[in-house]
């Protein structure tokens, strides 16, 4: 019962965060919202795993957490340099 309540709260929060990702005026708002979507997806995986009695989904949640960090940093680097393979000597 409390898992269902937590699932509903996380889904509502996801809807609000996705609306910020769509509305967000700057690219940094969207990157921030994308990071929060990742955080909420991890929590959703954990809670739904308990809701259905299969907490093994936590492995997927850990993997997603690691990917979330790398993904956000890659997006920020891309929008700072316009290139993921930025080399200072090229000046590219």
């Amino acid at each position, binding site marked *: 019962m409390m898992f269902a309540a937590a699932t509903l709260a996380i889904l509502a929060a996801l809807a609000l965060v996705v609306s910020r990702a769509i509305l967000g005026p700057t690219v940094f708002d969207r990157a921030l919202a994308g990071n929060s979507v990742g955080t909420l997806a991890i929590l959703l995986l954990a809670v739904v795993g308990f809701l259905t009695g299969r907490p093994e989904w936590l492995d997927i949640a850990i993997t997603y957490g690691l990917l979330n960090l790398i993904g*956000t940093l890659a997006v920020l680097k891309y929008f700072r340099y316009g290139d993921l393979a930025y080399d200072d000597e090229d000046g590219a």
Partner: protein
Amino acid sequence: MDLVIEIASWGLILTGSFFIMVGAVGMNRMPDVFTRMHAASVIDTTGAGFLIFGLILQAGFTLVAAKLVFILLLFFFTGPVVSHALAQAALTAGVEPILADDRRPGHQATPDDTAGRAEGVAAEQGEQPA
């Protein structure tokens, strides 16, 4: 004893859900990207923290609890890294924090307040402040 753990777990999970909703609403109501980062960190710390502590109480002393502790540690180490990178990227890209001035009653914002911020940004970019 089981009842005590069950009630504590209820309370923690509902508190975590509440703070997750607070963070998500804050991300829609805050005025600029730096204040929205503050709302997003509410989700990362208080929301996730309370929720995962509640799930740990449900799991008991098992491998599942260890995995939940790993997820919590992951949040606590990656959250500040991402926040720092995001704030620095936004500052160097020229996004102005609109709430940076001291707005306490009776306090006049001096030019030094904003000058110090510009020097800080210039130092981040490897330039000498004038």
